[in-house]
């Protein structure tokens, strides 16, 4: 394995962490939008309580992913910046509005029972960001981005402003909602809210299943490069995913929330790694391989060292954060 491969694996891990952690925060926004019934206010409060201490840390996985990408694969970053200018910019507007609206709303907790302006903005921006990041992923995975003599010959809409791009965008949003609802089921065990979030997890799980299967079925037609990845080297993980999907839904249905949380996370991991492994060693198929996009060796080595040292600080800190706020073993002292 070359240094470029090692860094690609590291960045794919960061993408996975971003998906299962920050994805659930975007899904929290969806839960906020969907809050209804006599416990609507309590549902919104539960979302806010679950996200509050962790969403900013979860968000940094994206920063690490971006900085790592332009450090190790600067050419790829240049091409993606050009070809995906529009979906990335729209996703960014979503990210800014989501974060700001969440922070702003946090200072008027009494409004949580009824939909507020900030709440609606928080919810809709939480849909926009993963949707457009999903369309951008579709553009890369489907092999739609083409470069001729330093110019993007496929134009600025290729691969994402398409029905298939929209399908993957919707799939990303549904996965975010699925993650959020499953986590919230665990975090509200033994309360009435558990049933509310379980119902939402089932709906989101079914929805993401339908969208995911549709994306898979249409891939050979609409995204031949993705089909090649998934049915090629990605096949074992894809098959595992096809088995794990119904199992995760069953775990949600059978009131096994902890098992369900594990299975839903596994589902996201399987989907991402089936795609990633299948696409290796291409970074932007069919144009650019990891090796062709890679920075000089000295930079790659330095990035691995920085990441190693960084991980020594990051991992214990993350453990502490989740231990303090997500562990039922610690009683509230308040």
């Amino acid at each position: 394995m070359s240094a470029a491969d090692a860094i690609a694996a590291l960045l794919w891990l960061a993408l996975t962490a971003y998906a299962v952690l920050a994805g659930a925060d975007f899904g929290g926004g969806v839960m906020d939008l969907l809050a209804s019934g006599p416990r609507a206010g309590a549902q919104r409060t539960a979302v806010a309580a679950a996200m509050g201490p962790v969403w900013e840390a979860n968000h940094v996985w994206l920063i690490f992913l971006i900085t790592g990408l332009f450090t190790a694969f600067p050419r790829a970053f240049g091409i993606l910046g050009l070809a995906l200018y529009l979906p990335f910019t729209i996703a960014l507007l979503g990210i800014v509005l989501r974060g700001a609206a969440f922070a702003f709303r946090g200072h008027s907790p009494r409004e949580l029972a009824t939909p507020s302006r900030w709440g609606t903005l928080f919810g809709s921006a939480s849909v926009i960001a993963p949707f457009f990041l999903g369309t951008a992923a579709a553009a890369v995975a489907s092999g739609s981005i083409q470069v001729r003599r330093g110019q993007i010959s496929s134009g600025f809409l290729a691969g994402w402003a398409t029905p298939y791009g929209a399908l993957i965008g919707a799939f990303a949003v549904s996965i975010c909602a699925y993650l959020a609802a499953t986590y919230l089921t665990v975090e509200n065990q033994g309360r009435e809210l558990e049933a509310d979030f379980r119902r939402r997890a089932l709906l989101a799980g079914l929805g993401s299943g339908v969208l995911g299967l549709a994306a898979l079925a249409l891939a050979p037609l609409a995204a031949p490069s993705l089909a090649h990845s998934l049915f090629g080297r990605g096949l074992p993980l894809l098959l595992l995913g096809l088995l794990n999907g119904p199992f995760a839904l069953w775990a949600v249905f059978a009131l096994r929330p902890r098992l369900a949380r594990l299975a839903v996370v596994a589902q996201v991991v399987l989907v991402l790694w089936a795609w990633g492994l299948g696409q290796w060693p291409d970074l932007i198929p069919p144009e650019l391989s990891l090796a062709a996009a890679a920075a000089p060796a000295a930079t790659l080595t330095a990035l691995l060292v920085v990441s190693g040292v960084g991980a020594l600080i990051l991992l214990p800190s993350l453990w502490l954060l989740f231990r303090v706020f997500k562990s039922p073993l610690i009683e509230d002292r308040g």
Partner: protein
Amino acid sequence: MDNLTLARATMGTSLGFHIVFAVLGVGMPALLMLAEGIWLRTGDPVWLGLARRWAKAFGILFAVGAVSGTVLSFELGLLWPRFMAFSGSMIGLPFSAEAFAFFTEAIFLGLYLYGWDRLTPVQHWLTSIPIALSGAASSLFVVMANAWMNSPTGFKLGPQGQLLSVDPLAAAFNPSTWTEDPHMLLSAYVVSGFVVAAVYAAGILRGRNDAHHRRALLAGLAMGTLAIVLAGVTGDSSARFVYAQQPAKFAAMEGLYHTERGAPIHIGGIPSNSQQKDLFAIEIPHALSLLAAFNPNAKVVGLNAFPPQDRPNPILVHLSFDTMVGLGMLLGLLALGSWFYYWRRRILPRRLLWLLVAAGPASVVTMETGWFVTEFGRQPWIVYGILRTSQAVTSAPALGLTFAAFLAIYSGLALTTARLLLGLAAKERTARIGADTEGPAAR
């Protein structure tokens, strides 16, 4: 408008907006650490009250800073794809290190903001230390990347301009890093200190002359004073570095057109390209040569030594530079004068309080104009002497639309943040006044 103008406008707006939140992200944690630490030692509830109140305000500021910083990391590639394709392997390393610093800051801020009831007082105070340290580290790392754009080192280019080899450590620790990094870090403490002092000076002027306001004012002023004095020293060495390394930028800063020995300093004035001089300026003979090289007859290169397409805009750069230096000196004088008065009389008179209120926004202007000098002064280069800004810009469509969208959102965020912080202050006041009568339902 063309893509170059729109991309520069978008990047400038994003940076100018983010930097205000970023510097508060460096300075506020230091104040939090101080206030809560004093409370732990003395048990004085005023300090705890300050820490809790600052933490709430900082929660909003940090969130806006985090998301606007994300925009910037993307915009490097979205607006300047050819710049990043060329420089990513050199400036990426400090950015990646910054990502870890940002992780640390976000994680411990989560613990700090939401951990009041879950951690012991000492544990809680301890979480403020990594926030303050990683905030400072973030600033140092990010400015390394900007320093590299001013003095690009650590790489070899082939005859066609292709990258042959990279030394990422030499790039990170390029010559400008040693002058830019300390100056920016100190500026962050300057702005945080003066902004906090201004908020509480305004409170005292409006009749809330209590221990709470007085201590907050003095704490902010102390940090601002220490930092502004040191920033004067680092600013001086920055200017001399620019004199030696970026002569075109230096000539623009000083509004100097003709190369001369024994060059005068021009204070103020408007550089005129047609008349080749700085109009209406106050001239101090030989002063520039003396300050730049410690020699009253040293040679200073003028703008005319560079072809027109290689010159920065002297009007923007010179006026920004004079604003930064002038306001910086006034801030320093005001800070030292306030302490002298306070030391003699144990109070601050209303006139000084009014000046301290003005010093808050003035410190922000000082910092922003400092960045104008760095950025406008580097033009027309994005990587000094290597890559032109016009060569680096994107060819993507709809930049006008996205610029308008960002401008609208940033304006909205700035207004809302200000409104919320004011509301927060008002709410805390009513809560303190009505603390005895307030029932549980009103919480």
